[in-house]
């Protein structure tokens, strides 16, 4: 169900643009943006995402279909973005982009990439006293270059991405994220989403807090093998499942109403 491309230069879908620009998380944001734009999903003031119930679900991609089914009952904005980013549907989109050679399997940056640089530097210093050591410098530098890894987006990928602009609010999300800005406006504002909602999504900046689980690479649970080199791994521990809605000690419940147990099935 991945949006088909009619020719090499055809427009990329917002999801694809999102993926090429910033990975599965952004692609999830873009898919969610498309659904909000189409009135298929509503977001509450405090960031509860709920699919708008209708007979015709209106999803145009498998990622969108997943979001709609996942948000049949309210789910937090960040939870749905995160879960969609890690979904098998998103992995399919990634595979599709790989097949079209818009992306490539990145080489992970080695944890010790800086170490080879240090060795090269050391050899240079040593080379001043013993010129024979210069021989090792190019080898160490090559090793360093290989260890630095390779980006996930191919030249072709960058090429098709270049003409894409924030022509509408959905593409604005694909390119800059809900937290980003376009033309001096907050992208979230274009969707009437408050900053407290869009800020639920962990930002790249948080990567400074490097957690032990980060290891050297980044790769998220599923498809984020695309993290090759410059990958921001925000290790913000996701806020579990808790939707801010309801629950309460109330006997009657969750969604808060008094409605009966549903189809009794």
């Amino acid at each position, binding site marked *: 169900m991945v949006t088909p491309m009619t020719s090499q230069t055809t427009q990329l879908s917002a999801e694809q643009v999102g993926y090429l620009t910033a990975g599965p998380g952004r692609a999830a944001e873009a898919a969610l943006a498309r659904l909000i734009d189409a009135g298929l999903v509503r977001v509450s*003031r405090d960031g509860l995402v709920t699919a708008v119930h209708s007979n015709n679900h209106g999803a145009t991609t498998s990622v969108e279909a997943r979001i709609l089914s996942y948000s049949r009952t309210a789910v937090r904005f960040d939870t749905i973005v995160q879960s969609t980013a890690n979904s098998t549907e998103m992995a399919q989109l990634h595979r599709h982009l790989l097949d079209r050679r818009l992306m490539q399997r990145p080489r992970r940056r080695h944890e010790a990439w800086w170490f080879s640089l240090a060795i090269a530097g050391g050899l240079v210093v040593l080379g001043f006293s013993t010129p024979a050591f210069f021989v090792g410098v190019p080898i160490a530098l090559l090793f360093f270059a290989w260890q630095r890894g390779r980006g996930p987006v191919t030249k072709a990928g960058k090429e098709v991405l270049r003409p894409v602009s924030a022509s509408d609010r959905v593409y604005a999300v694909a390119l800059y994220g809900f937290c980003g800005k376009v033309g001096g406006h907050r992208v979230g504002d274009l969707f009437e989403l408050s900053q407290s909602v869009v800020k639920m999504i962990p930002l790249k900046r948080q990567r400074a807090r490097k957690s032990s689980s980060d290891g050297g690479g980044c790769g998220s649970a599923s498809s984020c093998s695309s993290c090759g080199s410059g990958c921001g791994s925000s290790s913000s521990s996701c806020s579990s499942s808790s939707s801010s809605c309801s629950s309460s000690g109330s006997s009657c419940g969750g969604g808060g109403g*008094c409605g009966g147990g549903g189809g009794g099935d």
Partner: protein
Amino acid sequence: MAGITDLGVGIGWRSEIDLTVERLPGVDFVEVVAENLHIGHLPESVTLLLERGIPVLPHAVSLSLGGADEVDLKRVQHLGEIAEAVGAPMVSDHVCFVRAGGLDSGHLMPVPRTKDALDVLVANVRLAQRNLPVPLALENVAALLEWPDGELSEGQFLAELVERTDCWLLVDVANLYANARNIGTDPERFLDEIPLERLAYVHVAGGEQHGDVYHDTHAHAVLPEVLGVLDELCSRVRPPGVLLERDDNYPSDTEIASELAAIRAVVDKHRG
């Protein structure tokens, strides 16, 4: 307080559809589930509605007034505090029990319509009333099963309750329809038997027929038959308010608006 003055047409406020409720045309009042609100931090949307002058009525689901145990005053107190926080003219809960024998059913269970059950209910309601700052309205529930050995009809049971506690009634026409379908009670007889002058307001909700059982899901469209029961009620009394309850599978704003419009059309038909 002499009755509740003209509430109009309203909708149950739920956090998932807060923006929808704010945007909908023709929402004269809203109801909030008291257990989902916390004193000190009312949802922004509820505050906004209050600022617009929209009445907000707390509706409780956990008092278990029909339960054998004495009513839990902590729950009553919370309901009262919410009422004060939103300046509500009235609060409500159901004629039901939710807890018994150390278990929680998670739902509103019907009480046996016996003298024992009525005496206990009356005692619990009186205790709750003494601890509430505003009048209490009680709602008829939808039942999937019938207790054996009922001594009174549902209408008689509620009439007795009103007589002895001076409480108000919140009549759920969808529940009347559900009971007619599922346990064969007669909505018209119910309406004949209850003291309609004590009607606070009316609930309308959607449901779904599943095999031979009608489920009062609050997650489906309102059936024309349910509007038919509302019509029947309106032919007897002008309800001070009618409120649409939707708790899940929220449709588009347009669809919700048209359900409200359909309700208003029934109410207005009898006003002319």
